[in-house]
């Protein structure tokens, strides 16, 4: 299903974090969103997943709750801007957070089971679990370990696994490579390709330009809350201004 973001604007109090941002990801694509730290990549994914709206409502009346959220988000032709985060998941659009964020006091298996919260069919849950274990054998080995104690790479894999358990059709992955050792990064690179190969559409954010350019086919460049450029890696690298000011290459 297609994801379409239009005129998305987010202000935290008076700080403009996203300024009329738009993007489109077609079904089956793998697209990246690159930009330096603080560009607003995470905020964009959070807004799409319904978390900014949730933050705004649940912090109403506090300092952190002065949030402005404008613009439209469409998923598969349905306007999801007014849906709640837990309703968006139901449609197959799932966010995989930065550094994985496991439920730290639960073991690996329980984390995956929480991912399947919306699924009531025991057989289907077991089937997804086997699929996740096949993709990430290390999770099967660690299934009884408390997830607060697994490594950074395993946390990210667990988070992706958890999204697969939620029957994701479209994955938003926030900075999958951040803080990982080169070998782990490479392994994760291949696994994300595998997930894409399973027919799941992916929009991922990255600060590591080469990781993003090798993995995705199309890219958006975000800087200080504004969409600066978009295109294939070749197109972006050919543009001298984009290359020097936003990609730092």
């Amino acid at each position, binding site marked *: 299903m297609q994801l379409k973001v239009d005129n998305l604007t987010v202000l935290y109090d008076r700080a403009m974090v996203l300024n009329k941002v738009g993007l489109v990801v077609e079904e089956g694509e793998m697209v990246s969103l690159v930009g330096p730290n603080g560009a607003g990549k995470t905020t964009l994914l959070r807004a799409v997943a319904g978390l900014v709206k*949730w933050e705004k409502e649940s912090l109403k009346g506090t300092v952190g709750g002065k949030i402005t959220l404008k613009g439209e988000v469409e998923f598969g032709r349905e306007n999801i801007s007014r849906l709640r985060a837990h309703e968006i998941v139901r449609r197959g659009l799932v966010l995989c957070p930065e550094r994985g*964020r496991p439920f730290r*006091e639960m073991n690996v298996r329980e984390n995956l089971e*929480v991912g399947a*919260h*919306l699924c009531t069919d025991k057989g289907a849950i077991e089937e997804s679990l086997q699929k996740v274990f096949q993709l990430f054998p290390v999770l099967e080995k660690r299934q009884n370990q408390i997830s607060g104690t697994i490594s950074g790479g395993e946390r990210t894999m667990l988070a992706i696994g*958890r999204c697969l358990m939620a029957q994701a059709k479209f994955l938003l992955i*926030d900075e999958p490579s951040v803080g990982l050792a080169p070998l782990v990064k490479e392994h994760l690179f291949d696994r994300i390709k595998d997930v894409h190969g399973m027919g799941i559409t992916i929009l991922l954010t990255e600060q590591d330009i080469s990781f993003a350019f090798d993995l995705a086919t199309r890219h958006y460049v975000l800087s200080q809350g504004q969409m600066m450029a978009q295109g294939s890696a070749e197109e972006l690298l050919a543009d001298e201004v984009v290359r020097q000011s936003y990609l730092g290459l």
Partner: protein
Amino acid sequence: MVIDILVNGLVAGGIYAVLAVGFSLIFGVARIVNMAHTAFYMLTAYFIFVGTTMLNIPLVASLILAIILITIIGLICFKLFFDRVKQHETTVMIISVALAMLFQEILFLVFGGHYTGIPPLAKGFVDIASIRVSYQHIFAIVTTGLILLGLWLLLSKTGLGKAIRAVSQDREIANLMGINVNQIFLIVMGISVALAGLAGAVIAPIYMVSPLMWIQPLTIVLASVVLGGLGSVGGCVVGALILGYTEIIVTFLVPGGASLRGAVSMSIMVVVLLVRPEGLFGVAFEEERL
């Protein structure tokens, strides 16, 4: 004497544990410090009193009706007073104190300040090693044990339990996994108040019922929760048992101990917290954002 201490300590500790678990659950899940928690326990005892002595409803039916009624009242209080301000943790706490005082005043107005008793559910005694133990005490111990076991099974084995733990560990991610966080808050509030009600139902026939009976258990509940480690449901059970036994041991072994028991319990809590500020089973949480 040893048997007396064992049995009475288990009754007191068990009741405190059931109360502390309910308090700890709604705190852990929704960050609501509900100072009216033991006031719900008190109201339940009064409902049972009214049911059995004034309306002549059979005791068992009174117990069940009282627990249902208090759960409904608890949910209404949550919706009316806590839900809309729950992001302001201090406000919620102050509102809950006001609520407890309100209940206390209403009970004073309706029933006066005197102590009232309720007939026991199970009459009679059994002799254990030549010590008489009332059936009501045995009933209290078995019931509190079953309640705690049931709760443990709910939290560790069921999908709802996993969702509840997920919300208490990271409500944002729980939300992202399709869990309706506000609905979980409501369910946990219901469970929490029902637990207070159950504790009231078990204790009403053993202890005296009065409009001030919420204060002493509340201090013990607060102490158990920090002793066990804020947010640790298992920890507060251990905390409650330690404090329950302390109370009984002091009462039995120290001359004039009945008036000292609160002070000794609180001293234990303070000493433990000086040595281990996070409590016996507490974990230090670091805040994280996406």
